[in-house]
């Protein structure tokens, strides 16, 4: 399996992550801390999916906030308005989002670089405008409340239950993503990043695999978005806004593009950051912007690249 081994062997990392996730609850002394931890886990899920698209396959998306939010809205509306069981409405929501992503993939992924960034941004903004304006369904700018989440007759109310659910989701996702990356399919995705002609010349239908990874990343975003909507009991258009999409992209880049656990680290840091900055309330946006600029200038390969440097030395 040497061909598939990347700079880091990913297998132990999954175990370490599981261990950390098991230990964290001892640090979560109240519900508020739990809430932040759970949010970080859901963000990490979206970032891992987005990283498959951006970091590995090299296709930027400035719409993943919108996809996550829309997925959440669909699940929430199906449960709240049409009385579907939460599990079922999430499944339907993911199906709809997969179809939407598949339909968008061909025209959008023909574009590259700035054009791709702009097209995805346009899609994201249109989604958020729709969510803001369809008040009948979505509650408009004020958002809407979401029914509580129940599974096989059991209603999730305790924070630790949600933490467990989110952590399991993240671990399974990491395992699947790892398998994906270390496979012939993953090799195709990584080749797209460098040159589309190379894979095409050996028989790869490039458009098909771009669509596939796009659909996967959108479905993951929608799943995390739906679960988060049920967890927080409330969803607003901000969850699907432009800034949210940027935030997700920054998570991936901050952690390290094309590095599986980079996305997780980026998501955790960026989720904690606003909490750490609450005492600088007025300066929050300023500091956030400065961090993005600083990382892009001084650490363009992300935080994980620091570990590489340390490891090479050691």
């Amino acid at each position, binding site marked *: 399996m040497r061909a598939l081994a990347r700079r880091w062997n990913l297998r132990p990392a999954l175990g370490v992550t599981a261990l950390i996730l098991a230990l964290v609850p001892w640090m979560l002394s109240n519900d508020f801390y739990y809430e932040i931890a759970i949010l970080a886990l859901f963000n990490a899920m979206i970032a891992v999916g987005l990283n498959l698209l951006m970091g590995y396959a090299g296709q930027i998306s400035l719409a993943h906030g919108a996809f996550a939010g829309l997925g959440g809205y669909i699940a929430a509306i199906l449960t709240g308005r049409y009385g579907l069981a939460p599990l079922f409405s999430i499944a339907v929501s993911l199906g709809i989002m997969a179809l939407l992503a598949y339909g968008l993939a061909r025209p*959008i992924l023909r574009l590259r670089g*700035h*054009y791709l960034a702009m097209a995805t941004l346009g899609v994201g903004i249109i989604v958020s405008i*729709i969510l803001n304006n369809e008040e009948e369904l979505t509650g408009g700018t004020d958002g809407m409340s979401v029914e509580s989440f129940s599974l096989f007759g059991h209603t999730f109310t305790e924070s630790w239950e949600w933490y467990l659910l989110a952590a399991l989701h993240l671990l399974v996702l990491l395992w699947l993503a790892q398998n994906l990356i270390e496979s012939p399919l993953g090799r195709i995705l990584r080749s797209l990043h460098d040159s589309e002609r190379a894979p095409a010349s050996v028989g790869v239908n490039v458009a098909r695999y771009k669509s596939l990874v796009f659909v996967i990343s959108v479905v993951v975003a929608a799943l995390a978005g739906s679960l988060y909507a049920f967890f927080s009991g409330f969803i607003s258009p901000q969850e699907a806004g*432009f800034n949210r999409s940027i935030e997700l992209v*920054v998570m991936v880049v901050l952690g390290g593009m094309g590095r599986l656990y980079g996305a997780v680290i980026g998501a955790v840091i960026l989720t904690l950051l606003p909490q750490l900055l609450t005492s600088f309330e007025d300066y929050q*946006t*300023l500091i*956030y912007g400065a961090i*993005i600029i600083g990382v892009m200038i001084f650490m363009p390969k992300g935080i994980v690249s620091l570990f590489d440097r340390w490891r090479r030395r050691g």
Partner: protein
Amino acid sequence: MTELFAFLLTGLTVGFVYALVGMGFTVIYNASGIINFAQGEFVMAGGMIMVFLLAGGIPYLPAYLLAIGLTALLGVLLWKLTDLSRDSSQESLIILTLGYAIFLRGAAEVVFDKELHTLPPLLGEGHLTILGATLSYQALLVMAASVLIVAGLWFFFRRTRTGKAMIAVSLDPDAARLMGISLKKIWVLSFSLAAAIASVGGILLTPITSTNYEVGIMLGLKGFAAAITGGLSNPFGAVAGGLILGIMEALVAGYLSSEYKDAVAFVIMLLILFFRPGGLFSHRGVQRV
């Protein structure tokens, strides 16, 4: 008829501002290959600086010039930062300039405030009546100034040495450098020029729509849509793009739905990207394999 005409005038006024922002995008893009997502923040900066200079008791004209100059300086500052960036992949640059936008928004919040501000119209509150539709002096001023700026840029790019050098750089940076053109100078110039143009738009638009620290987001994105619609490689395409978007937006707001007016620019942009990625005026596809 009067109604239609009124919508057209509104559309043109806003369209010209989109055009100014869009031109800024293309000026920087052609000189450096960078899409500056902080372009809208230049518009915001122009308006906000003007507001606070006037509030600080500085007379109109010096304040006006100072606001433009400070914004241009901001452009230079952003260029300096971009120059520091070691990784120049497109994704990184996109995110870097998004970082600028967020930083500038945050800075405006801190340096100024979060309130909504407006400016007194330069030529007073009066208005013209054309075919029954009213057009405020300020809107007229926006259009006139935009036309002047477009004409000035046209002259600059076609007739002056520096302007021609900028065009040369956009066509073939390596050849341009061999011909003795300093790329750094061109880049600095493009950032400051784009910032200055945008700030004029911001200052002139403030009396009509008011301004606050967040106003740059939508203006920037719509300016970008204008640039894409007209074709990224052509500053004057962005003018046409801006006017088209402005007018379509006004028509949709007037006749169909004011809620969805903000989506118009992006729907048009997506259609252009899907079917004519080189812009409305291109003959060949761009960025496709």
